[in-house]
């Protein structure tokens, strides 16, 4: 058995992403609060003409 299709990640573009555990300390923090708020506003008031 083999996978018929694989989702293209960074490797498909020749980029190897290295895990840096020191970045885990950023998880859960919102680093860009202004932009995050803008996105929250968009999704709270969003009308979609179609959906997927």
């Amino acid at each position, binding site marked *: 058995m083999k*996978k018929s299709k694989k989702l293209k990640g*960074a490797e498909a573009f020749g980029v190897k992403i290295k895990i840096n555990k020191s970045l885990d300390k950023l998880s859960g923090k919102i*680093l860009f609060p202004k932009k*995050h708020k803008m996105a929250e506003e968009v999704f709270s008031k*969003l009308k*979609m003409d179609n959906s997927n």
Partner: protein
Amino acid sequence: MKHERYEVVESSTDKLEFTFFSEGPKGKIVKVIQFSKIMNIDAYNLSFGNYNKDGSIDDETTNDNKDRNKILATVAVAISEFTALYPDKWVFFCGSTPERTRLYRMALTINMQELEKDFHIYGVFKGINTFKRVPFIKGVDYYGFMIKRKKVNLLYEKK
């Protein structure tokens, strides 16, 4: 996405944060990309900016490091990596200024042929106290953008 990109990229274990160095006449600048989860929705906000030595983040400074397209192509790689891990999540992004939003629109337009193979791409219009999502069309000014992986058949097949 055939553009030159930074090939040394690091990420947190959950692939919500990515960092890389912008290199140019202004020196080496640490860039951070974050996908932050929007409450109660299967969607993430994408932002990126400078990761300063004191730990502060700055997404408003223009570095003028002459590598704008290389940075955008690297952000596109991060989107690809993130959505490969979270294929059912929406990613929203917009610029901190209309000029930057237009820059993102240009990046989408330039890479459209490649991107639409794998992604649904939408533009977001801002109305009076409302937002509307429509399929992305080249040459139109949007408030922001939403993308999501197209569903693919991940069934296993016999050799």
